[in-house]
Protein backbone atom coordinates (compact mmCIF):
# COMPACT_ATOMS: atom_id res chain seq x y z
CA UNK A 1 0.00 0.00 0.00
CA UNK A 2 1.51 3.33 -0.96
CA UNK A 3 1.97 6.11 1.54
CA UNK A 4 -0.68 8.22 -0.16
CA UNK A 5 -3.37 5.56 0.13
CA UNK A 6 -2.50 5.04 3.78
CA UNK A 7 -2.86 8.76 4.34
CA UNK A 8 -6.32 8.80 2.72
CA UNK A 9 -7.58 6.32 5.33
CA UNK A 10 -6.77 8.72 8.17
CA UNK A 11 -9.62 10.91 9.43
CA UNK A 12 -10.17 14.14 7.47
CA UNK A 13 -10.48 16.54 10.36
CA UNK A 14 -7.20 17.93 11.70
CA UNK A 15 -8.56 17.80 15.19
CA UNK A 16 -9.43 14.10 15.04
CA UNK A 17 -6.14 13.28 13.34
CA UNK A 18 -4.07 15.11 15.94
CA UNK A 19 -6.16 13.59 18.72
CA UNK A 20 -5.41 10.11 17.34
CA UNK A 21 -1.70 10.91 17.26
CA UNK A 22 -1.74 12.34 20.78
CA UNK A 23 -3.47 9.21 22.11
CA UNK A 24 -1.01 6.98 20.25
CA UNK A 25 2.06 8.87 21.53
CA UNK A 26 0.52 8.91 25.01
CA UNK A 27 0.07 5.13 25.04
CA UNK A 28 3.65 4.62 23.80
CA UNK A 29 5.03 6.95 26.50
CA UNK A 30 2.93 5.15 29.13
CA UNK A 31 4.43 1.80 28.17
CA UNK A 32 7.93 3.25 27.93
CA UNK A 33 7.70 4.83 31.40
CA UNK A 34 7.11 1.36 32.91
CA UNK A 35 10.26 0.02 31.22
CA UNK A 36 12.52 2.78 32.54
CA UNK A 37 14.17 3.04 35.93
CA UNK A 38 13.67 6.06 38.22
CA UNK A 39 16.63 7.97 36.73
CA UNK A 40 15.48 7.48 33.14
CA UNK A 41 11.92 8.39 34.12
CA UNK A 42 13.29 11.67 35.38
CA UNK A 43 15.10 12.18 32.06
CA UNK A 44 11.82 11.46 30.27
CA UNK A 45 10.14 14.13 32.40
CA UNK A 46 12.98 16.54 31.50
CA UNK A 47 12.54 15.79 27.82
CA UNK A 48 8.78 16.37 28.13
CA UNK A 49 9.05 19.84 29.66
CA UNK A 50 11.77 20.78 27.19
CA UNK A 51 9.42 19.67 24.41
CA UNK A 52 6.63 21.91 25.72
CA UNK A 53 8.94 24.97 25.61
CA UNK A 54 10.66 24.06 22.34
CA UNK A 55 7.35 23.46 20.55
CA UNK A 56 6.20 26.97 21.44
CA UNK A 57 9.54 28.49 20.53
CA UNK A 58 9.81 26.68 17.20
CA UNK A 59 6.33 27.87 16.29
CA UNK A 60 7.39 31.42 17.11
CA UNK A 61 10.70 31.26 15.22
CA UNK A 62 9.72 29.00 12.34
CA UNK A 63 6.15 30.06 11.72
CA UNK A 64 6.07 33.67 12.78
CA UNK A 65 9.73 34.40 12.01
CA UNK A 66 10.55 35.97 15.38
CA UNK A 67 13.64 35.06 17.37
CA UNK A 68 13.56 35.02 21.16
CA UNK A 69 16.49 34.67 23.52
CA UNK A 70 14.20 35.30 26.47
CA UNK A 71 12.23 32.09 26.83
CA UNK A 72 14.34 30.95 29.78
CA UNK A 73 12.99 33.95 31.72
CA UNK A 74 9.43 33.07 30.70
CA UNK A 75 10.03 29.55 32.01
CA UNK A 76 11.09 31.15 35.28
CA UNK A 77 7.74 32.97 35.46
CA UNK A 78 5.90 29.66 35.12
CA UNK A 79 8.16 27.91 37.61
CA UNK A 80 7.77 30.59 40.28
CA UNK A 81 3.99 30.66 39.78
CA UNK A 82 3.80 26.90 40.38
CA UNK A 83 6.16 27.08 43.37
CA UNK A 84 4.17 29.91 44.99
CA UNK A 85 0.77 28.32 44.37
CA UNK A 86 1.70 24.78 45.44
CA UNK A 87 4.16 25.68 48.19
CA UNK A 88 2.40 28.64 49.81
CA UNK A 89 -1.24 28.29 48.80
CA UNK A 90 -1.47 24.50 48.72
CA UNK A 91 -3.02 24.28 45.23
CA UNK A 92 -3.34 20.97 43.40
CA UNK A 93 -0.96 20.21 40.54
CA UNK A 94 -3.28 20.67 37.55
CA UNK A 95 -4.80 24.04 38.52
CA UNK A 96 -1.33 25.29 39.47
CA UNK A 97 0.04 24.33 36.04
CA UNK A 98 -2.96 25.95 34.33
CA UNK A 99 -2.37 29.11 36.37
CA UNK A 100 1.35 29.07 35.45
CA UNK A 101 0.41 28.87 31.77
CA UNK A 102 -2.07 31.72 32.12
CA UNK A 103 0.22 33.98 34.16
CA UNK A 104 3.12 33.51 31.73
CA UNK A 105 0.82 34.21 28.80
CA UNK A 106 -0.22 37.47 30.50
CA UNK A 107 3.45 38.39 31.01
CA UNK A 108 4.01 37.45 27.37
CA UNK A 109 1.45 39.97 26.06
CA UNK A 110 3.43 43.19 26.74
CA UNK A 111 6.68 41.46 25.74
CA UNK A 112 5.05 40.29 22.52
CA UNK A 113 3.61 43.72 21.75
CA UNK A 114 7.05 45.28 22.26
CA UNK A 115 8.67 42.47 20.25
CA UNK A 116 6.33 42.97 17.31
CA UNK A 117 7.98 46.34 16.68
CA UNK A 118 11.46 44.83 16.50
CA UNK A 119 13.24 42.77 13.85
CA UNK A 120 16.15 40.32 13.71
CA UNK A 121 19.12 41.20 15.93
CA UNK A 122 17.25 44.06 17.65
CA UNK A 123 14.63 41.59 18.80
CA UNK A 124 17.42 39.20 19.82
CA UNK A 125 19.07 41.98 21.86
CA UNK A 126 15.85 43.02 23.61
CA UNK A 127 14.87 39.45 24.50
CA UNK A 128 18.44 38.75 25.64
CA UNK A 129 18.23 41.70 28.02
CA UNK A 130 14.87 40.31 29.18
CA UNK A 131 16.46 36.92 29.92
CA UNK A 132 19.26 38.55 31.92
CA UNK A 133 17.13 41.23 33.59
CA UNK A 134 14.13 39.31 34.84
CA UNK A 135 15.97 37.05 37.36
CA UNK A 136 17.07 40.29 39.07
CA UNK A 137 13.41 40.75 40.06
CA UNK A 138 13.59 37.55 42.13
CA UNK A 139 16.59 39.06 43.88
CA UNK A 140 14.93 42.43 44.51
CA UNK A 141 11.78 40.96 46.04
CA UNK A 142 13.57 38.20 47.93
CA UNK A 143 10.84 38.15 50.60
CA UNK A 144 8.34 36.72 48.12
CA UNK A 145 10.64 34.81 45.78
CA UNK A 146 13.24 33.52 48.24
CA UNK A 147 16.21 35.37 46.68
CA UNK A 148 19.16 33.26 45.53
CA UNK A 149 17.89 30.13 47.28
CA UNK A 150 14.54 30.23 45.53
CA UNK A 151 11.44 28.34 46.60
CA UNK A 152 11.24 24.61 47.13
CA UNK A 153 8.08 22.50 46.89
CA UNK A 154 7.15 19.00 47.96
CA UNK A 155 7.13 16.37 45.22
CA UNK A 156 3.70 15.43 43.85
CA UNK A 157 2.46 12.15 45.40
CA UNK A 158 1.17 9.49 43.02
CA UNK A 159 -2.47 8.45 43.67
CA UNK A 160 -2.76 5.31 45.78
CA UNK A 161 -4.60 3.17 43.18
CA UNK A 162 -1.37 2.94 41.14
CA UNK A 163 0.13 0.73 43.84
CA UNK A 164 2.72 1.28 46.53
CA UNK A 165 5.67 0.47 44.26
CA UNK A 166 4.78 3.26 41.80
CA UNK A 167 7.74 5.67 41.95
CA UNK A 168 7.52 9.44 42.31
CA UNK A 169 9.81 9.78 39.30
CA UNK A 170 7.40 7.85 37.10
CA UNK A 171 4.48 9.96 38.32
CA UNK A 172 6.45 13.11 37.50
CA UNK A 173 7.19 11.71 34.05
CA UNK A 174 3.45 11.11 33.52
CA UNK A 175 2.56 14.66 34.55
CA UNK A 176 5.26 16.17 32.34
CA UNK A 177 4.33 13.99 29.37
CA UNK A 178 0.66 14.91 29.78
CA UNK A 179 1.63 18.58 29.67
CA UNK A 180 3.75 18.02 26.56
CA UNK A 181 0.87 16.19 24.84
CA UNK A 182 -1.52 19.08 25.56
CA UNK A 183 1.00 21.44 23.93
CA UNK A 184 1.36 19.08 20.96
CA UNK A 185 -2.42 18.92 20.46
CA UNK A 186 -3.01 22.67 20.77
CA UNK A 187 -0.07 23.74 18.60
CA UNK A 188 -0.80 21.18 15.87
CA UNK A 189 -4.35 22.46 15.54
CA UNK A 190 -3.23 26.06 15.78
CA UNK A 191 -0.65 25.76 13.00
CA UNK A 192 -3.21 24.12 10.70
CA UNK A 193 -5.81 26.81 11.39
CA UNK A 194 -6.34 30.18 9.77
CA UNK A 195 -4.20 31.76 12.48
CA UNK A 196 -1.29 29.52 11.51
CA UNK A 197 -1.72 30.59 7.90
CA UNK A 198 -1.73 34.26 8.94
CA UNK A 199 1.53 33.71 10.83
CA UNK A 200 3.21 32.12 7.83
CA UNK A 201 1.98 34.96 5.60
CA UNK A 202 3.38 37.54 8.01
CA UNK A 203 6.69 35.68 8.20
CA UNK A 204 7.12 35.43 4.43
CA UNK A 205 5.91 38.83 3.21
CA UNK A 206 5.08 41.29 5.91
CA UNK A 207 3.88 44.08 3.66
CA UNK A 208 1.92 41.81 1.34
CA UNK A 209 0.23 40.29 4.38
CA UNK A 210 -0.65 43.76 5.63
CA UNK A 211 -2.09 44.63 2.22
CA UNK A 212 -4.28 41.51 2.43
CA UNK A 213 -5.82 42.90 5.60
CA UNK A 214 -3.81 40.93 8.15
CA UNK A 215 -2.77 42.88 11.22
CA UNK A 216 0.95 42.15 11.26
CA UNK A 217 1.73 43.41 14.76
CA UNK A 218 -1.28 41.73 16.29
CA UNK A 219 -0.48 38.37 14.64
CA UNK A 220 3.11 38.51 15.88
CA UNK A 221 2.07 39.51 19.39
CA UNK A 222 -0.43 36.63 19.41
CA UNK A 223 2.27 34.15 18.33
CA UNK A 224 4.56 35.44 21.07
CA UNK A 225 1.81 35.11 23.68
CA UNK A 226 1.07 31.50 22.70
CA UNK A 227 4.73 30.56 22.81
CA UNK A 228 5.07 32.34 26.17
CA UNK A 229 2.18 30.22 27.47
CA UNK A 230 4.00 27.06 26.33
CA UNK A 231 7.19 28.26 28.05
CA UNK A 232 5.18 28.95 31.22
CA UNK A 233 3.75 25.44 31.22
CA UNK A 234 7.22 24.01 30.56
CA UNK A 235 8.68 26.09 33.39
CA UNK A 236 5.90 24.99 35.73
CA UNK A 237 6.64 21.36 34.88
CA UNK A 238 10.33 22.03 35.48
CA UNK A 239 9.55 23.35 38.97
CA UNK A 240 7.49 20.21 39.69
CA UNK A 241 10.21 17.87 38.43
CA UNK A 242 13.12 19.65 40.15
CA UNK A 243 10.89 20.46 43.18
CA UNK A 244 12.52 23.87 43.13
CA UNK A 245 12.30 27.30 41.51
CA UNK A 246 15.45 29.40 41.87
CA UNK A 247 17.19 32.07 39.77
CA UNK A 248 20.18 29.78 39.12
CA UNK A 249 17.94 27.33 37.25
CA UNK A 250 17.20 29.96 34.57
CA UNK A 251 20.53 31.40 33.40
CA UNK A 252 21.04 32.91 29.96
CA UNK A 253 22.55 29.56 28.93
CA UNK A 254 19.08 27.99 29.29
CA UNK A 255 17.60 30.42 26.75
CA UNK A 256 20.52 29.81 24.40
CA UNK A 257 20.23 26.03 24.69
CA UNK A 258 16.50 26.30 23.92
CA UNK A 259 17.43 28.10 20.71
CA UNK A 260 20.01 25.40 20.02
CA UNK A 261 17.34 22.73 20.53
CA UNK A 262 14.92 24.11 17.96
CA UNK A 263 17.57 24.78 15.30
CA UNK A 264 19.48 21.50 15.70
CA UNK A 265 16.18 19.59 15.90
CA UNK A 266 14.79 21.27 12.80
CA UNK A 267 13.23 24.74 12.81
CA UNK A 268 9.48 25.17 12.47
CA UNK A 269 8.22 21.60 12.93
CA UNK A 270 6.82 19.89 16.01
CA UNK A 271 8.83 16.77 15.17
CA UNK A 272 11.92 18.99 15.14
CA UNK A 273 11.00 20.19 18.64
CA UNK A 274 10.85 16.54 19.78
CA UNK A 275 14.30 15.89 18.29
CA UNK A 276 15.57 19.07 19.96
CA UNK A 277 14.23 17.97 23.37
CA UNK A 278 15.96 14.61 22.93
CA UNK A 279 19.22 16.40 22.02
CA UNK A 280 19.01 18.70 25.06
CA UNK A 281 18.48 15.77 27.43
CA UNK A 282 20.71 13.11 25.90
CA UNK A 283 23.66 15.05 24.47
CA UNK A 284 25.02 16.34 27.84
CA UNK A 285 24.64 12.83 29.25
CA UNK A 286 26.47 11.19 26.36
CA UNK A 287 29.28 13.75 26.27
CA UNK A 288 29.73 13.23 30.02
CA UNK A 289 29.89 9.46 29.68
CA UNK A 290 32.26 9.75 26.75
CA UNK A 291 34.56 12.20 28.54
CA UNK A 292 34.79 10.02 31.63
CA UNK A 293 35.53 6.89 29.66
CA UNK A 294 39.07 8.21 29.07
CA UNK A 295 41.51 8.66 31.92
CA UNK A 296 42.53 12.31 31.64
CA UNK A 297 43.78 15.06 33.90
CA UNK A 298 41.13 16.88 35.91
CA UNK A 299 41.21 20.13 33.89
CA UNK A 300 40.79 18.26 30.62
CA UNK A 301 38.15 15.76 31.69
CA UNK A 302 35.97 18.36 33.40
CA UNK A 303 35.95 20.51 30.26
CA UNK A 304 35.80 17.76 27.65
CA UNK A 305 31.97 17.38 27.71
CA UNK A 306 31.68 21.11 26.96
CA UNK A 307 34.20 20.84 24.12
CA UNK A 308 32.36 17.89 22.57
CA UNK A 309 29.08 19.80 22.89
CA UNK A 310 30.59 22.75 21.00
CA UNK A 311 32.00 20.54 18.26
CA UNK A 312 28.64 18.76 17.88
CA UNK A 313 26.80 22.09 17.53
CA UNK A 314 29.18 23.31 14.83
CA UNK A 315 29.27 19.95 13.07
CA UNK A 316 25.49 19.51 13.12
CA UNK A 317 24.94 22.89 11.50
CA UNK A 318 27.54 22.21 8.81
CA UNK A 319 26.22 18.71 8.01
CA UNK A 320 22.46 19.28 8.47
CA UNK A 321 21.71 22.97 7.84
CA UNK A 322 17.98 22.24 8.26
CA UNK A 323 18.38 20.27 11.47
CA UNK A 324 17.82 16.61 12.33
CA UNK A 325 14.22 16.68 11.09
CA UNK A 326 15.42 18.13 7.77
CA UNK A 327 17.99 15.34 7.50
CA UNK A 328 15.36 12.70 8.27
CA UNK A 329 13.00 14.20 5.71
CA UNK A 330 15.71 14.17 3.04
CA UNK A 331 16.55 10.56 3.88
CA UNK A 332 12.90 9.45 3.70
CA UNK A 333 12.41 11.32 0.41
CA UNK A 334 15.48 9.66 -1.02
CA UNK A 335 14.26 6.19 0.06
CA UNK A 336 10.78 6.78 -1.44
CA UNK A 337 12.26 7.97 -4.72
CA UNK A 338 14.56 4.97 -4.87
CA UNK A 339 11.60 2.62 -4.35
CA UNK A 340 9.33 4.26 -6.92
CA UNK A 341 12.11 4.18 -9.53
CA UNK A 342 12.56 0.46 -8.79
CA UNK A 343 8.83 -0.14 -9.26
CA UNK A 344 8.95 1.51 -12.69
CA UNK A 345 11.69 -0.83 -13.93
Amino acid at each position, binding site marked *: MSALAARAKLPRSTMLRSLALVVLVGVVLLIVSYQLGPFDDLQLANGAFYFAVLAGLTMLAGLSGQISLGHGALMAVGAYTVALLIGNEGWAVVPALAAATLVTAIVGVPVGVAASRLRGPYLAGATLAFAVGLP*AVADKFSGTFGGENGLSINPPTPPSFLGASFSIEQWEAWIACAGALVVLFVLWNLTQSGLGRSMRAVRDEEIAAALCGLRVGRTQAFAFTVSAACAGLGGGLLALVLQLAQPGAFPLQLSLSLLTGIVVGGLGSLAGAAWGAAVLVLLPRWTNDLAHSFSLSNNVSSNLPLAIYGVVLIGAMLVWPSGIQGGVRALVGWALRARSSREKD
Partner: protein
Amino acid sequence: MTKFIDLTLNGISTGAIYAAVALSLVLIWRATRIVNFAQGAMLMFTTFIASAVINSTGSYVLGLLVALASGLVLGAVVERVVMRPVESAPPLNAVIVALGVYTLLVAVAGMIWGNTPRSFPAAFSLRGYEVGGTRLLFSPNDSFIVLVVIAAALGLALLFQRTSLGLRMRAAAFQPEVARMLGVRVGQMFTVGWALAAVAGSLAGVLVAPSVFLGPNDFDPILIIGFVAAVLGGLDSPPGAVVGGLLAGLALSYVSGYEGSSLVPLAALVLLVAVLMVRPGGLFSASKERRV
Protein backbone atom coordinates in the same frame (compact mmCIF):
# COMPACT_ATOMS: atom_id res chain seq x y z
CA MET B 1 28.31 65.65 44.26
CA THR B 2 31.67 63.86 44.52
CA LYS B 3 29.79 60.59 44.20
CA PHE B 4 28.11 61.81 41.03
CA ILE B 5 31.45 62.85 39.51
CA ASP B 6 33.00 59.53 40.54
CA LEU B 7 30.15 57.56 38.99
CA THR B 8 30.33 59.64 35.81
CA LEU B 9 34.07 59.04 35.44
CA ASN B 10 33.66 55.36 36.21
CA GLY B 11 30.84 55.18 33.65
CA ILE B 12 33.08 56.73 31.00
CA SER B 13 35.88 54.21 31.49
CA THR B 14 33.59 51.14 31.61
CA GLY B 15 31.60 52.66 28.75
CA ALA B 16 34.79 52.81 26.67
CA ILE B 17 35.23 49.07 27.13
CA TYR B 18 31.59 48.37 26.23
CA ALA B 19 32.14 50.57 23.17
CA ALA B 20 35.10 48.44 22.07
CA VAL B 21 33.06 45.24 22.45
CA ALA B 22 30.11 46.85 20.64
CA LEU B 23 32.47 47.94 17.84
CA SER B 24 33.64 44.38 17.36
CA LEU B 25 30.03 43.18 17.09
CA VAL B 26 29.09 46.00 14.70
CA LEU B 27 32.06 45.29 12.41
CA ILE B 28 31.00 41.66 12.03
CA TRP B 29 27.33 42.54 11.61
CA ARG B 30 28.18 45.03 8.85
CA ALA B 31 30.45 42.59 7.05
CA THR B 32 28.45 39.37 7.24
CA ARG B 33 25.02 40.05 8.87
CA ILE B 34 25.91 37.72 11.75
CA VAL B 35 25.66 38.58 15.44
CA ASN B 36 28.83 37.03 16.79
CA PHE B 37 27.85 35.42 20.07
CA ALA B 38 31.31 33.83 20.17
CA GLN B 39 32.96 37.23 20.63
CA GLY B 40 32.97 36.98 24.42
CA ALA B 41 34.83 33.68 24.30
CA MET B 42 37.18 34.91 21.58
CA LEU B 43 38.28 37.91 23.61
CA MET B 44 38.56 35.71 26.71
CA PHE B 45 40.88 33.38 24.82
CA THR B 46 43.17 36.14 23.49
CA THR B 47 43.33 37.69 26.98
CA PHE B 48 44.49 34.35 28.37
CA ILE B 49 47.22 34.30 25.71
CA ALA B 50 48.22 37.84 26.74
CA SER B 51 48.30 36.76 30.38
CA ALA B 52 50.59 33.84 29.54
CA VAL B 53 52.94 36.12 27.57
CA ILE B 54 53.04 38.75 30.33
CA ASN B 55 53.74 36.10 32.95
CA SER B 56 56.65 34.60 31.04
CA THR B 57 58.25 37.80 29.63
CA GLY B 58 57.11 40.43 32.13
CA SER B 59 56.33 42.88 29.36
CA TYR B 60 52.80 44.33 29.25
CA VAL B 61 53.27 45.85 25.80
CA LEU B 62 54.40 42.53 24.33
CA GLY B 63 51.37 40.81 25.90
CA LEU B 64 49.01 43.40 24.44
CA LEU B 65 50.56 43.09 20.98
CA VAL B 66 50.41 39.29 21.07
CA ALA B 67 46.75 39.48 22.15
CA LEU B 68 45.90 41.75 19.21
CA ALA B 69 47.81 39.54 16.76
CA SER B 70 46.20 36.36 18.05
CA GLY B 71 42.80 38.08 17.82
CA LEU B 72 43.53 38.86 14.18
CA VAL B 73 44.37 35.22 13.44
CA LEU B 74 41.51 33.79 15.52
CA GLY B 75 38.92 36.03 13.85
CA ALA B 76 40.13 35.13 10.37
CA VAL B 77 40.26 31.40 11.14
CA VAL B 78 36.78 31.32 12.72
CA GLU B 79 35.28 33.14 9.72
CA ARG B 80 37.08 31.12 7.08
CA VAL B 81 36.63 27.66 8.61
CA VAL B 82 33.25 27.51 10.36
CA MET B 83 31.33 30.68 9.50
CA ARG B 84 31.77 30.74 5.72
CA PRO B 85 29.57 27.65 5.13
CA VAL B 86 26.65 29.09 7.13
CA GLU B 87 26.77 32.65 5.83
CA SER B 88 24.23 31.78 3.13
CA ALA B 89 22.15 29.50 5.41
CA PRO B 90 19.15 30.71 7.49
CA PRO B 91 20.29 33.38 10.01
CA LEU B 92 19.69 31.23 13.09
CA ASN B 93 22.20 28.63 11.88
CA ALA B 94 25.02 31.17 12.15
CA VAL B 95 23.87 31.96 15.70
CA ILE B 96 24.08 28.27 16.64
CA VAL B 97 27.53 27.87 15.06
CA ALA B 98 28.69 30.95 16.98
CA LEU B 99 27.35 29.40 20.19
CA GLY B 100 29.25 26.23 19.29
CA VAL B 101 32.48 28.21 18.84
CA TYR B 102 31.80 29.94 22.16
CA THR B 103 31.33 26.62 23.98
CA LEU B 104 34.41 25.09 22.37
CA LEU B 105 36.67 28.06 23.22
CA VAL B 106 35.46 28.17 26.84
CA ALA B 107 36.14 24.44 27.16
CA VAL B 108 39.59 24.62 25.56
CA ALA B 109 40.58 27.60 27.75
CA GLY B 110 39.46 25.61 30.79
CA MET B 111 41.54 22.65 29.67
CA ILE B 112 44.70 24.72 29.15
CA TRP B 113 44.50 27.31 31.93
CA GLY B 114 42.03 25.76 34.40
CA ASN B 115 38.69 27.09 35.61
CA THR B 116 39.99 29.06 38.61
CA PRO B 117 39.93 32.80 37.79
CA ARG B 118 43.29 34.59 38.01
CA SER B 119 44.28 38.24 38.20
CA PHE B 120 45.57 40.27 35.26
CA PRO B 121 48.04 43.19 35.52
CA ALA B 122 47.00 46.74 34.61
CA ALA B 123 49.06 48.92 32.26
CA PHE B 124 49.21 51.88 34.68
CA SER B 125 48.45 52.57 38.32
CA LEU B 126 44.94 51.76 39.51
CA ARG B 127 45.10 54.46 42.24
CA GLY B 128 42.73 57.31 41.43
CA TYR B 129 43.94 60.84 40.65
CA GLU B 130 43.97 63.24 43.60
CA VAL B 131 42.22 66.55 43.00
CA GLY B 132 42.07 69.12 45.82
CA GLY B 133 42.58 66.51 48.54
CA THR B 134 39.90 64.04 47.37
CA ARG B 135 40.76 60.91 45.47
CA LEU B 136 38.73 60.47 42.30
CA LEU B 137 37.41 57.13 41.05
CA PHE B 138 39.46 57.62 37.90
CA SER B 139 43.00 56.29 37.64
CA PRO B 140 45.83 56.68 35.13
CA ASN B 141 44.80 53.23 33.87
CA ASP B 142 41.29 54.54 33.19
CA SER B 143 42.72 57.38 31.09
CA PHE B 144 44.75 54.78 29.21
CA ILE B 145 41.58 52.76 28.53
CA VAL B 146 39.64 55.77 27.27
CA LEU B 147 42.51 57.00 25.06
CA VAL B 148 43.18 53.58 23.55
CA VAL B 149 39.52 53.04 22.71
CA ILE B 150 39.25 56.53 21.17
CA ALA B 151 42.36 55.83 19.09
CA ALA B 152 40.98 52.46 17.96
CA ALA B 153 37.63 54.00 16.99
CA LEU B 154 39.32 56.81 15.05
CA GLY B 155 41.64 54.31 13.36
CA LEU B 156 38.68 52.21 12.23
CA ALA B 157 36.83 55.30 11.00
CA LEU B 158 39.89 56.36 8.96
CA LEU B 159 40.26 52.83 7.61
CA PHE B 160 36.68 52.68 6.41
CA GLN B 161 36.45 56.24 5.05
CA ARG B 162 39.91 56.96 3.68
CA THR B 163 41.56 53.77 2.45
CA SER B 164 40.97 51.56 -0.55
CA LEU B 165 40.67 48.49 1.70
CA GLY B 166 37.92 50.24 3.66
CA LEU B 167 36.07 51.13 0.46
CA ARG B 168 36.27 47.53 -0.74
CA MET B 169 35.02 46.27 2.62
CA ARG B 170 32.05 48.62 2.54
CA ALA B 171 31.27 47.62 -1.04
CA ALA B 172 31.43 43.91 -0.18
CA ALA B 173 29.12 44.42 2.79
CA PHE B 174 26.44 46.50 1.11
CA GLN B 175 26.45 45.26 -2.52
CA PRO B 176 28.25 41.89 -2.65
CA GLU B 177 27.12 41.11 -6.20
CA VAL B 178 28.12 44.45 -7.70
CA ALA B 179 31.36 44.47 -5.73
CA ARG B 180 32.20 41.01 -7.05
CA MET B 181 31.61 42.17 -10.63
CA LEU B 182 33.98 45.08 -10.06
CA GLY B 183 36.73 42.72 -8.97
CA VAL B 184 36.45 42.95 -5.17
CA ARG B 185 37.18 39.59 -3.58
CA VAL B 186 34.10 39.58 -1.36
CA GLY B 187 34.98 36.47 0.65
CA GLN B 188 38.39 37.91 1.49
CA MET B 189 36.75 41.15 2.67
CA PHE B 190 34.49 39.15 5.00
CA THR B 191 37.56 37.47 6.48
CA VAL B 192 39.26 40.85 6.95
CA GLY B 193 36.10 42.21 8.63
CA TRP B 194 36.04 39.33 11.11
CA ALA B 195 39.77 39.65 11.77
CA LEU B 196 39.49 43.41 12.47
CA ALA B 197 36.49 42.84 14.70
CA ALA B 198 38.36 40.21 16.69
CA VAL B 199 41.24 42.68 17.14
CA ALA B 200 38.83 45.25 18.60
CA GLY B 201 37.42 42.51 20.82
CA SER B 202 40.83 41.34 22.07
CA LEU B 203 41.72 44.97 22.84
CA ALA B 204 38.59 45.21 25.00
CA GLY B 205 39.55 41.96 26.72
CA VAL B 206 43.00 43.14 27.74
CA LEU B 207 41.62 46.51 28.88
CA VAL B 208 38.85 45.09 31.04
CA ALA B 209 40.78 42.13 32.47
CA PRO B 210 42.39 44.02 35.41
CA SER B 211 38.99 45.06 36.80
CA VAL B 212 37.34 41.62 36.47
CA PHE B 213 39.15 38.38 37.10
CA LEU B 214 40.31 36.35 34.14
CA GLY B 215 38.53 33.00 33.85
CA PRO B 216 36.76 31.07 31.08
CA ASN B 217 33.31 32.50 31.93
CA ASP B 218 34.17 35.85 33.47
CA PHE B 219 33.73 37.94 30.32
CA ASP B 220 30.14 36.91 29.58
CA PRO B 221 28.56 39.96 31.31
CA ILE B 222 30.86 42.25 29.28
CA LEU B 223 29.64 40.69 26.05
CA ILE B 224 25.99 40.94 27.10
CA ILE B 225 26.27 44.66 27.91
CA GLY B 226 28.41 45.13 24.78
CA PHE B 227 25.63 43.59 22.70
CA VAL B 228 23.05 45.78 24.43
CA ALA B 229 25.27 48.78 23.62
CA ALA B 230 25.58 47.77 19.96
CA VAL B 231 21.81 47.36 19.68
CA LEU B 232 21.27 50.72 21.44
CA GLY B 233 23.42 52.52 18.89
CA GLY B 234 22.21 50.57 15.90
CA LEU B 235 24.12 47.54 14.64
CA ASP B 236 25.00 49.18 11.32
CA SER B 237 26.74 52.18 12.78
CA PRO B 238 30.27 52.26 14.30
CA PRO B 239 29.68 55.76 15.80
CA GLY B 240 26.46 54.32 17.20
CA ALA B 241 28.47 51.56 18.89
CA VAL B 242 30.69 54.14 20.62
CA VAL B 243 27.73 56.27 21.73
CA GLY B 244 25.77 53.18 22.79
CA GLY B 245 28.74 51.92 24.78
CA LEU B 246 29.21 55.22 26.63
CA LEU B 247 25.46 55.52 27.25
CA ALA B 248 25.29 52.00 28.67
CA GLY B 249 28.43 52.56 30.75
CA LEU B 250 27.10 55.80 32.28
CA ALA B 251 23.57 54.54 32.90
CA LEU B 252 24.70 51.31 34.51
CA SER B 253 27.31 53.12 36.61
CA TYR B 254 24.64 55.45 38.05
CA VAL B 255 22.24 52.57 38.71
CA SER B 256 24.85 50.43 40.42
CA GLY B 257 26.15 53.40 42.42
CA TYR B 258 22.80 54.70 43.65
CA GLU B 259 20.60 51.58 43.67
CA GLY B 260 22.97 48.63 44.02
CA SER B 261 24.64 46.36 41.50
CA SER B 262 21.95 43.66 41.60
CA LEU B 263 19.68 45.96 39.58
CA VAL B 264 22.17 46.45 36.72
CA PRO B 265 20.73 43.72 34.43
CA LEU B 266 17.22 45.07 34.97
CA ALA B 267 18.42 48.61 34.24
CA ALA B 268 20.02 47.40 30.99
CA LEU B 269 16.67 45.89 30.00
CA VAL B 270 14.73 49.08 30.79
CA LEU B 271 17.25 51.28 28.93
CA LEU B 272 17.22 49.05 25.87
CA VAL B 273 13.43 48.73 25.72
CA ALA B 274 12.98 52.48 26.23
CA VAL B 275 15.31 53.29 23.32
CA LEU B 276 14.04 50.55 21.00
CA MET B 277 10.38 51.49 21.50
CA VAL B 278 11.16 54.96 20.18
CA ARG B 279 13.71 53.90 17.57
CA PRO B 280 13.29 50.19 16.70
CA GLY B 281 16.57 50.18 14.72
CA GLY B 282 18.75 51.78 17.39
CA LEU B 283 19.75 55.41 17.92
CA PHE B 284 21.80 55.77 14.75
CA SER B 285 19.59 53.81 12.38
CA ALA B 286 19.02 55.17 8.91
CA SER B 287 15.39 55.15 7.85
CA LYS B 288 15.04 52.34 5.37
CA GLU B 289 12.45 51.47 2.79
CA ARG B 290 10.90 48.05 3.06
CA ARG B 291 10.14 46.15 -0.10
CA VAL B 292 7.53 43.50 -0.84
